[in-house]
């Protein structure tokens, strides 16, 4: 910084080359354009989802939820190692289903953090007055929350996997289960991020966003599992599968029990058949695509 120069304030006095008045310096360096800006927004949003680069207060909840996600996995591993069990107490694919309340809470707290703030403080126009466009903004935010959720859901699986290997469980079995678990939580991350962002992007009020996301995730799950329980008492197996389409977590449950070797958490433990499973996959992918489409539509309107 000592060699700062200004063309408008040349040094006076011969021999003295130090320049005291630091005038305006123009910038001739590289301008990295749209894709770099999108990447910057992605990394800023991803860090923000764990409170990094934000106040200490906003680190508390995401970090706490991360720990809460991982602690049961650590305990299971410890038990498995200590008791020399032949298998882990919980399947890789089942873990996220069990911990769904924590995941929902995370989405509810971080989705509004990611998008409602920009709307509320009207920062969005500043983004769009720069090279990026609507699609870049939506993709960066979507990818960031998906990645944050993937970190949240995949970390405990990693703990389980490492623990399982330490406990000298069957390597092939465990690796296959771990891989299936990763595919499942990746899908779950995409789905939850999409739903969370669509709801949060509707309102500039963070509180409303949090409440709405929690409501949508828990009410849909509560309604679906109640209806499924009723269907089971009436012996309506097809009904159970059909009803399961209508809440995000049962959707993931259905997909993974049809194709990822998971045992279903549906009443009666019977997941959808393969044909029904295809519908589940299509429904899941459709929802993710719809979330993206809705976000694009939403931000088309939020110009300057």
């Amino acid at each position, binding site marked *: 910084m000592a060699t700062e120069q200004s063309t408008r304030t040349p040094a006076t006095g011969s021999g003295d080359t130090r320049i005291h008045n630091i005038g305006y310096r123009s*910038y001739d*360096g590289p301008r990295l354009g749209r894709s770099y800006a999108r990447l910057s927004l992605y990394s800023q949003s991803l860090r923000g989802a764990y409170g990094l680069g934000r106040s200490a207060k906003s680190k508390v909840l995401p970090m706490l939820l991360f720990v809460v996600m991982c602690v049961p996995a650590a305990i299971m591993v410890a038990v498995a190692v200590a008791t020399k069990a032949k298998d882990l107490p919980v399947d890789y694919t089942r873990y996220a289903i069990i911990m769904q309340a924590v995941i929902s809470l995370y989405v509810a707290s971080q989705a509004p953090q990611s998008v409602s703030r920009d709307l509320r403080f009207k920062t969005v126009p*500043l983004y769009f007055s720069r090279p990026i466009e609507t699609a870049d903004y939506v993709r960066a935010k979507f990818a960031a929350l998906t990645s944050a959720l993937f970190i949240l859901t995949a970390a405990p699986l990693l703990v389980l996997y490492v623990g399982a290997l330490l406990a000298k469980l069957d390597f092939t079995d465990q690796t296959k289960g771990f891989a299936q678990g990763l595919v499942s939580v990746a899908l779950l991350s995409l789905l939850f991020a999409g739903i969370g962002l669509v709801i949060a992007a509707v309102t500039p009020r963070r509180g409303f966003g949090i409440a709405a996301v929690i409501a949508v995730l828990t009410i849909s799950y509560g309604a679906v599992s109640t209806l499924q329980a009723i269907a089971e008492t009436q012996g309506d197996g097809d009904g159970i599968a059909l009803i399961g389409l209508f809440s995000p977590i049962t959707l993931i449950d259905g997909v993974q029990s049809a194709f990822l070797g998971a045992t279903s958490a549906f009443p009666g433990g019977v997941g959808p058949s393969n044909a029904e499973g295809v519908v589940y996959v299509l429904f899941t992918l459709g929802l993710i695509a719809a979330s993206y489409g809705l976000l694009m539509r939403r931000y088309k309107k939020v110009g*300057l």
Partner: protein
Amino acid sequence: MDVTVIATESLSKRFPRVTALDRLSVDVGPGVTGLVGANGAGKSTLIKILLGLSPATEGRAEVLGLDVATDGAAIRERVGYMPEHDCLPPDVSATEFVVHMARMSGLPATAARERTADTLRHVGLYEERYRPIGGYSTGMKQRVKLAQALVHDPQLVFLDEPTNGLDPVGRDEMLGLIRRIHTDFGISVLVTSHLLGELERTCDHVVVVDGGKLLRSSSTRDFTQTTTTLAIEVTDTDEHPDGTRAVRDALHARGVTVQDAGGLPGAGHILQLTAQGEDTYDLVRDVIADLGLGLVRMEQRRHQIAEVFKDDADGDAQRKEAVGHGN
């Protein structure tokens, strides 16, 4: 530098119910240009089109030689934009925020940090830049908004009502800063305001729009220097207890029309007249000397742009409305 920074050609923007811009053709050169108009005159719509964010219904526009319809992203890389409304998250510091915005403009991380430090210093933010923006005064927030528009060293900045909400001192400081953006930083400025008076002091060129139409576009010098107004204040003596009136009558007798300076406090003692040339100054001096009065002051007053428009706009109610905000 290009001769023309902004050029529009019968640019129109129609919404289902309103016509925001109506066949606007204007050329803007380098320097500080004021865009004046009442609220709803189409200023923000114009900026939006110039940033390539909203397609024009018809006509075309170029910014820095780039077509807004096809080169929006390239334009936005070279220009800065300071919105009228609040746009700052309260829970981050000015430094963090401006660094982020610099990176959003495509600056590599290191350059973003250096440019942020420089720019915040230039707009007059020092130690407070590490504190969360939520605790800033309105003036400091305006400076942060300005900094984020300048941080990527654009060739042109759009400043939308930068003096809004500032007290008179803050207003003057902001206007001085805007002047420096061109003179010291070499960046052209398009600044909007609904106050003609403050643009008069700051701008090289003023464009007036109303109802989406161009009212007038000319340099500030044209506005204010076609005629010179002289303001005169004299003392009273025993011989002439009302010196002001004596001077007025004497000047009347010589065929010079004199007006009172208007309704401001103390203005009763100030006379205004239009100087036709060097002769007028001599005449005033001689008249006052003959009466034996003391000349307290004789100063040049630049016309307010508003006055020029009042003359232009006679009989055109719409124009008067636009100009009415000028004082």
